[in-house]
C-alpha cells in the first residue's frame, strides 16, 4: 500500500526541524483564555495580541454578545441546513439587510466563511470560456476559487497596472472577463491602486471583483473599503468581505448592485451545498455591522495606534514591509525563516503574539512578522509592544553571542 501521506514527508521533516530548535510552534499557538480583544493567555502568560485582524475590537462588544445570546436561545445552536433549504432563519435575513445598509447595495449574499465567499464567487462568476485575471499576490481563497471553476486563469504582477493592461489586451475582445483585486493585500499590508486598475478593466470590458476583507470599517467615508476611499462605488461590480476581521465573528459575504446577483444563491456550490451560519453568529454579525456604521472613534483610534506602531518599530530599526502605514497591517521583514521563527518565539516569550508568515503565504523569499492592531489597543499598549520588540531582539543577540 502506498502511504498517501508520505508525499508530505518533507513538510514533516521541516516542521520537526523547526521545533527541534526549541521554539514554540508558530502554527500551534493555543489561547487558553481570551481576556479582551487585545489580551489572551498563551503558555500561562498574559499576552498582548498583535496579530488577530480584530481591527475594530468588536469581539467582546456588549451589544454584539447580547445579540448572540438572544439568538442562541431563540433559534438554537445551529441551522442544520443549507440556506436554500432549511437553513435560512430570521437572523440570516437580518444580517444581509445590515450588509445592504452598510454598503448601500441592492443585494448581499452571506456565506459561511470568507474563504467560501471567494471560493463561491470566483468559481461561479467565471465559467468555461471566460477569463479570470488576478493579482499574483491574491489570497489562497481566490486561487482556490480559480481551481474550482472552469475559467482560464491569467495572473499579473502584484499591483502592476501596466501588467494588468497588457494581459487584458491579449484576451479575445468578446470573451467574458473578471478582474480580481484586493483593497488591502494581507501579507505586506499594501493597498492597491484600484482607481487605475478598475479603469484598465473597464477599458477592456472586464467586470471587477474587489476583496475588501482587510479594509472594512476604516477605509472610505462609510467604512466600505479602499474602493470607497478611491471613489469607485459605481465602478466595481462585486465586493467580497468577511465577518472574521472587523466584524469580529465568522462568515463571508458578497455585495453587489447587479440586477441578476440573487441568482448566485441557486447556482453557487460553496453557498448552497453547505450549512448556513449558526443563527447566533448571524445575529452577532448583524449587531456588529450596524455598530460599525457609526464607529468613528474606534476607526480614529485604530489608525492612531497603527501609525504609532509603524513609526515606533521603524524608529527602533526594524525593516518595515511598507515605507508608510498604508493599512492596519504592520509587517516587519526578516531575512529568512530561521531568524523569523527565532524572533517570533522571543516575542511570545516576552508576551507578544504576532503572525509568523512565510512563503507560499507570502510572496517568494519574503518572511514576515505580521502585526495588526485593533481599535481596542491604546497608545500606551503600543509603547509596550515596541519596547518588547526591542527586548526580544536584544535577547536574541545575547543568545547568539553566548
Amino acid at each position, binding site marked *: 500500500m502506498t502511504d498517501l501521506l508520505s508525499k508530505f514527508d518533507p513538510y514533516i521533516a521541516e516542521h520537526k526541524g523547526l521545533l527541534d530548535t526549541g521554539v514554540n510552534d508558530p502554527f500551534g499557538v493555543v489561547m487558553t483564555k481570551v481576556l479582551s480583544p487585545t489580551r489572551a493567555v498563551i503558555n500561562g502568560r498574559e499576552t498582548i495580541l498583535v496579530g488577530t485582524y480584530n481591527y475594530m475590537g468588536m469581539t467582546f462588544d456588549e451589544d454584539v454578545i447580547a445579540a448572540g445570546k438572544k439568538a442562541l436561545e431563540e433559534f438554537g445552536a445551529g441551522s442544520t441546513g443549507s440556506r436554500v433549504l432549511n437553513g435560512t432563519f430570521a437572523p440570516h435575513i437580518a444580517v444581509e439587510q445590515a450588509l445592504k445598509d452598510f454598503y448601500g447595495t441592492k443585494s448581499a449574499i452571506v456565506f459561511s466563511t470568507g474563504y467560501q465567499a471567494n471560493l463561491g464567487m470566483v468559481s461561479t462568476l467565471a465559467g468555461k470560456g471566460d477569463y479570470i485575471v488576478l493579482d*499574483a499576490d491574491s489570497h489562497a481563497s481566490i486561487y482556490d476559487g*480559480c481551481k474550482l471553476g472552469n475559467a*482560464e*486563469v*491569467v*495572473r*499579473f*504582477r502584484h499591483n502592476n497596472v501596466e*501588467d494588468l493592461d*497588457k*494581459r487584458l489586451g*491579449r*484576451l479575445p475582445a468578446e470573451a467574458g472577463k473578471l478582474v480580481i483585486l484586493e483593497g488591502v493585500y494581507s501579507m505586506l499590508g499594501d493597498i492597491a491602486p484600484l482607481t487605475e486598475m478598475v479603469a484598465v478593466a473597464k477599458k477592456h470590458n472586464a467586470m471587477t471583483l474587489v476583496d475588501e476583507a482587510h479594509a472594512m470599517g476604516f477605509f472610505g467615508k462609510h467604512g466600505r473599503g479602499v474602493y470607497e476611499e478611491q471613489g469607485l462605488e459605481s465602478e466595481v461590480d462585486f465586493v467580497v468581505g468577511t465577518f472574521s476581521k472587523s466584524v469580529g465573528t465568522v462568515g463571508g459575504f458578497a455585495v453587489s448592485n447587479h440586477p441578476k446577483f440573487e441568482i448566485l444563491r441557486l447556482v453557487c456550490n460553496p453557498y448552497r451545498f453547505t450549512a448556513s451560519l449558526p443563527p447566533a453568529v448571524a445575529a452577532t454579525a448583524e449587531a456588529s455591522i450596524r455598530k460599525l456604521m457609526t464607529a468613528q472613534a474606534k476607526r480614529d483610534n485604530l489608525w492612531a495606534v497603527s501609525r504609532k506602531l509603524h513609526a515606533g518599530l521603524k524608529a527602533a530599526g526594524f525593516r518595515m514591509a511598507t515605507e508608510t502605514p498604508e493599512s492596519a497591517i504592520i509587517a516587519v521583514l526578516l531575512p529568512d525563516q530561521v531568524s523569523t521563527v527565532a524572533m517570533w518565539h522571543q516575542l511570545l516569550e516576552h508576551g507578544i503574539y504576532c503572525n509568523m508568515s512565510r*512563503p*507560499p503565504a507570502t*510572496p*517568494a*523569499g519574503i518572511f514576515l512578522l505580521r502585526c495588526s492592531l485593533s481599535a481596542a489597543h491604546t497608545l500606551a499598549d503600543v509603547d509596550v509592544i515596541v519596547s518588547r520588540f526591542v527586548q526580544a531582539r536584544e535577547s536574541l543577540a545575547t543568545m547568539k553571542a553566548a
Partner: protein
Amino acid sequence: MDRAPVYARLLELIEPFNKKGIALAEATSFADDLELDSLTVMDLVANIEDEWDINMPLNILPDLETIGQLADAVVKLKG
C-alpha cells in the same frame, strides 16, 4: 513560429532561476531538476508572457513539466 529560437531564448530566461547551475536540456524538469517552487515558477511565467506577448493560463502549467514541453506550449500559444 520557429521552435528553435524559442527554445534558445527560453534557456536564457530560465538561466537566472537555475540556482544549482545544472546543464539545461529538453528533458530538464522544473520541479525535479531545477527544484523551482510554485512561486518561482510564477515569476518565470510572467517573464515568458512578456517576452512573447502571450498569456500563459495557470490551468496549463501542471502539464508543463520540462523545458521541452514549455517550448512547445509557447510555440502553440504564439500561434
